[in-house]
């Protein structure tokens, strides 16, 4: 599903948190957002998912303005995994994933056998099928993150919005998740902090102080200049002798 955003902005009090972001994301593309803490990545993702009150600008899904769609229709198209999710309810992992079916169900179309299958398949995709019956409160941070991603998959969206999905994950599951995302036949927008992982996206948008200051293929966007000015690191580019892929080694710059 194609997402186009024009002039997106959001204001908290008198402070502009995100301002003037315009971007077109093609169907099937994996689009990464990078930027320092507080640069507005999470806010921009929420704007794209239509989750913030009083947004500025327009978001269109395949040419349909988000504001003209009912919430339920949006939720059938966009699934969103927040940076953190907490509850004190004594849910099991499977119950959390089943929440993803909400936009597809109603009082007249209750949770059925097909939904059971979708929930099980989603748990399997994130490697959590053995913990389906574990209580949410007993799951580790990374396990919770994977359950939330499974919930988003169970929503069967055409656009997946992920806010730092590799947070809390061990290295195996980080790579497994990125591989899973790249294989999904859906459009993905995700915020990332690991710039080497960000190199795997089709395109990157760089956020700085609420503005998208660069947008394009990773290798073109992550220039030494930008890494120095925006991320305040000096980067050395290394080559993996195995496959010739390039990666960064970072050095902290003094303040």
């Amino acid at each position, binding site marked *: 599903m194609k997402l186009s955003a024009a002039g997106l902005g959001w204001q908290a009090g008198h402070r502009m948190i995100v301002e003037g972001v315009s971007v077109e994301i093609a169907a099937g593309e994996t689009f990464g957002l990078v930027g320092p803490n507080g640069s507005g990545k999470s806010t921009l993702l929420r704007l794209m998912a239509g989750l913030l009150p009083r947004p500025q600008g327009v978001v269109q899904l395949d040419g349909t303005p988000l504001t003209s769609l009912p*919430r*339920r229709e949006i939720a059938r198209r966009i699934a969103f995994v927040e940076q953190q999710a907490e509850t004190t309810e004594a*849910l099991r992992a499977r119950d*959390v994933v089943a929440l993803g079916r*909400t*936009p597809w169900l109603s009082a007249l179309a*209750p949770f059925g056998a097909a939904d059971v299958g979708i929930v099980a398949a989603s748990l399997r995709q994130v490697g959590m099928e053995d913990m*389906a019956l574990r209580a949410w409160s007993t799951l580790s941070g990374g396990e919770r993150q994977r359950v939330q991603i499974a919930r988003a998959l169970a929503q069967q969206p055409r656009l997946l919005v992920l806010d730092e999905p590799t947070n809390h994950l061990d290295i195996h599951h980080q790579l497994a998740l990125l591989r899973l995302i790249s294989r999904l036949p859906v459009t993905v927008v995700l915020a990332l902090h690991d710039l080497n992982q960000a190199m795997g996206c089709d395109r990157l948008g760089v956020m700085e102080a609420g503005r998208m200051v660069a947008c394009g293929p990773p290798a073109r966007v992550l220039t030494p200049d930008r890494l120095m000015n925006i991320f305040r690191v000096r980067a050395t580019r290394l080559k993996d002798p195995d496959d010739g892929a390039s990666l960064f080694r970072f050095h902290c710059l003094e303040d």
Partner: protein
Amino acid sequence: MRAAARPGPLMRPLVLWGVPGFAALAVAILAGVVIGETPLPFGMVAAVFANHLLEAGHVVDPIDAGIIWNYRLPRTLVAAACGAGLALSGVVLQAIVRNALADPYLLGVSAGASTGAVAVTILGLGGGMIGISTGAFVGATLAFALVAALARAAGGGSAQLVLAGIAGSQLFNALTSFFIAKSANAEQARGIIYWLLGNLSGVRWPDVSLALPVVACGFVICLWFVRALDAFTFGTSSAASLGISVRRVQVVLIGMTTLMTATMVSLVGSIGFVGLVIPHAMRFLTGPGHARLIPASALAGAVFLIAADVTSRIIIPGQVVPIGVVTALVGAPGFALILIHNRSRA
């Protein structure tokens, strides 16, 4: 352990839980009619029911028949409706404001309803049960709006909501006392104060025909929204991203709980702790999913309040203890358990 563990066809849980549940409710209603200051034999109760429902024509002492049909049965049915309504209100509020301690009594909704009902009664603004219920609804709505606004202004946390509820309750209770002091004569005042503590003595059939439809409506609305209530588990933003129109659901469900609470308060006074303790007890049995929690809480609330009413009639011979006193004696320790349980989970 896979698909089989999921609630299968609708029939199985219905038979497993529904049949014992309704049996318990039927037994409770019978007990509510049989037990009292003058215990009436079960056979006589059956005869009176048969006379009214099937026109059986059994010969029963008219005074006893009157006690059974015009006094104890409506009283028991209203107790059941109130218990169910208050428990449902508790479940809904706890889900929507995401606070384990939310309940109409703690959030000041009951106090606001009392103030509205007393204002209508004493100041003589439009009489009758409907007038009093409307007054209670206006008071309850005002109280909830005030408490919600105060909690939000104070930062919107769990503790803030409960503190705002205390402030709201105090304010509305003070207003109630003020109205009583200003306008009621001594006898009126005693009656009102007794009613405020929760009292089912005056209940007759017209009260049943107000209480039952309101609770039935509330129950159906809750069932209609079970998925929305589940979707609030991870907060309002998460609910929105799951396709819930958060504002609309909040307005409908909070309006519905306010209406139920106001109706119950106008009929029987302000009864605490049912909305808090029953949903928590039921969560242990059914888990947090609202598809089971809603019916279980409604049933348990109904049975609990009938039991509390029976207890209030017989615990001191020759005297009726206000039912709010009985629910508080059971509910306050339950409340303490909830507090301790929540601490260990946080």
